[in-house]
């Protein structure tokens, strides 16, 4: 028996191809939306994996350092290094800001890049796990390692607050949960940049303190100087990253830290839960809504196209019925055409998504399992959408061929 659907598609391949192209772009958007969500989850996992930490020690009753603000004293790390099961521990700071690129041979700032500046102790947990170019930070000040997405090049000078840094290394897939690329700088520099104020502000604060009789007492020499010193220095960090000794479980180490140090401790699973289930949950729901709307729009378009194409063949369908074609043969023809349209659309969509995904500013992860799910969903939607046209075709009176 002749495959009527295939013959019809071949006969009007131009119309089919154009329709499939339109549908395909819609499917491409759908696959990309799914890829954006996957990319966010993968970025979060990469952020945790690349930090090299087994435990995140943060301020009590907070979900820091990525989801909430967390602040703890930088000497807390010394006590943590002595806790049972702790192999290594290091302070880290995180803050998002505009990092300026300097023009070559000029001190004038050029364009700036939004980045998450990470303060790390060189050679300790928190340092980027691998580099794609250059070297790790070896000096205590004014060196930086940047993610390639910042667009910074090796040897380039960048400005963070008042200080200038040389980019000595480039890393990859190091982005914040918000998708901002990371710039790693030495911890002391980062603390200064994050918590220290500019000179004018310090001077104003000193004057304000000097005018306050509570701190500037005539009978208490040295009090004002001590308070001023406290206000112009920072000993805070956002978190302490801990690596475990072999044979220790995360909970075995975390429990005594919570009890004795009065700090919050998260394992990798716990931190992943915060990042994936809480931090990007709203974005995931947003994307889910988009996917649902796109599915409905795709179904409506396929239904409309197939219905219109079927209505354009009413006379042929009447003739087919008159000469004895089974209803199921006619239904199969329409169903196969809808599925064919879906297949063309899916192929176009998959190719489009693959082509444009790298252009997106945030990481878009196109998974094979999503593609397979997308294909099944597309075929199901097309099959569902064809029922309207099939119903109309089966109602056609064979007598219409006679008139």
């Amino acid at each position, binding site marked *: *028996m*002749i495959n009527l659907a295939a*013959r*019809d598609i071949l006969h009007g391949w131009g119309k089919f191809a154009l329709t499939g192209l339109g549908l395909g772009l819609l499917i491409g958007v759908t696959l990309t939306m799914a890829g954006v969500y996957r990319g966010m989850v993968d970025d979060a996992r990469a952020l945790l994996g690349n930090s090299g930490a087994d435990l995140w020690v943060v301020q009590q009753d907070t979900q820091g350092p990525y989801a909430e603000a967390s602040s703890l004293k930088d000497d807390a790390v010394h006590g943590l290094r002595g806790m049972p099961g702790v192999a290594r521990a290091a302070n880290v700071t995180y803050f998002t800001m505009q990092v300026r690129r300097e023009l070559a041979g000029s001190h004038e700032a050029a364009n700036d890049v939004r980045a998450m500046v990470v303060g790390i102790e060189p050679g300790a947990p928190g340092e980027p796990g691998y580099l794609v170019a250059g070297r790790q930070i070896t000096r205590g000040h004014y060196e930086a390692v940047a993610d390639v997405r910042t667009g910074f090049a090796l040897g380039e000078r960048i400005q963070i607050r008042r200080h200038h840094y040389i980019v000595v290394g480039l890393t990859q897939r190091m982005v914040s949960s918000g998708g901002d690329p990371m710039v790693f700088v030495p911890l002391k520099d980062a603390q200064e940049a994050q918590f220290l104020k500019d000179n004018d502000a310090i001077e104003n604060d000193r004057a304000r303190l000097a005018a306050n009789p509570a701190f500037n007492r005539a009978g208490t020499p040295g009090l004002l100087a001590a308070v001023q010193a406290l206000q112009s220095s920072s000993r805070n960090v956002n978190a302490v990253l801990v690596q475990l000794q072999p044979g220790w479980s995360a909970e075995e180490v975390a429990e005594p830290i919570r009890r004795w140090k009065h700090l919050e401790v998260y394992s990798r699973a716990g931190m992943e839960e915060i990042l994936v289930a809480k931090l990007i949950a709203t974005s995931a729901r947003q994307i889910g809504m988009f996917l649902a709307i796109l599915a409905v729009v795709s179904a409506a378009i396929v239904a409309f196209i197939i219905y219109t194409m079927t209505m354009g063949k009413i006379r042929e369908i009447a003739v087919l019925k*008159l*000469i*004895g074609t089974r209803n199921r043969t006619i239904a199969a023809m329409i169903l196969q055409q809808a599925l064919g349209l879906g297949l063309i659309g899916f192929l176009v969509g998959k190719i489009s998504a693959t082509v444009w995904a790298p252009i997106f500013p945030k990481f878009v992860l196109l998974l094979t399992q999503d593609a397979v799910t997308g294909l099944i969903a597309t075929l199901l939607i097309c099959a569902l959408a064809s029922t309207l046209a099939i119903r109309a075709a089966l109602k056609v009176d064979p007598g219409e061929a006679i*008139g």
Partner: protein
Amino acid sequence: MTMNNNSTASRKSGIGGILIEGLRKVYGHGETAVEALKHVNMQVSPGEVVGLVGPSGSGKSTLLKCLGAIIEPTSGRMTLGDEVIYDNRWLTTDLRALRRDRIGFVFQAPYLIPFLDVTDNVALLPMLASVPNAQARARALELLGALDVAHRAKAQPSQLSGGEQQRVSIARALANKPPVILADEPTAPLDSERALAVMRILNQMAQQSQTAIIVVTHDEKIIPTFKRIYHIRDGQTVEEAGAGFSLEPRLG
């Protein structure tokens, strides 16, 4: 080719062609009922081509649809080939197979399937009757040869002239070797020369395949080609000779 029906020896008539006895068709019920066919009698022998003429609303289309097993008559009896198919009720449960295997259709416009080539347009019918593809195509080529369009076997319908398309549609009607062909104004869109050519072909095919052909027509120029004509008016048929028959006073 087989037909899915419950034919029995008692339904065999042995008349060949088509025989219609006391056929009635009433649309609607009660006061709104319209009797489209009142008491139609008709007989067409194998190998014979008869004309069916009548003014608009006379019941031609209804009769054609009853004969074509598209609508069910109200009462009467119809015999196709050697088998009674209707005797106050359909005697077969599968009207689709009846149309496919026992009745050929030729329409005013050829209505070829635009996405099939000429051969497959003709071969589709045997294929629908489960004839293997190669055998169906061989039959199609044989018919196309007989109708002098074999050279267009691979062409698409849109590439054919009107006359060629009509010949292909005749080949399609003959594909399953039906005992009866119903032709609904097959020459309407054609000029005189082509219309007469189509009628020659129908007569030739009727002779060769011993098929009974009923041609519904308004076309004055082909009237002389019929030996017998059934004139239908107000749902009743009157048999007349083709020679000397004129549509003018009857359709006016």
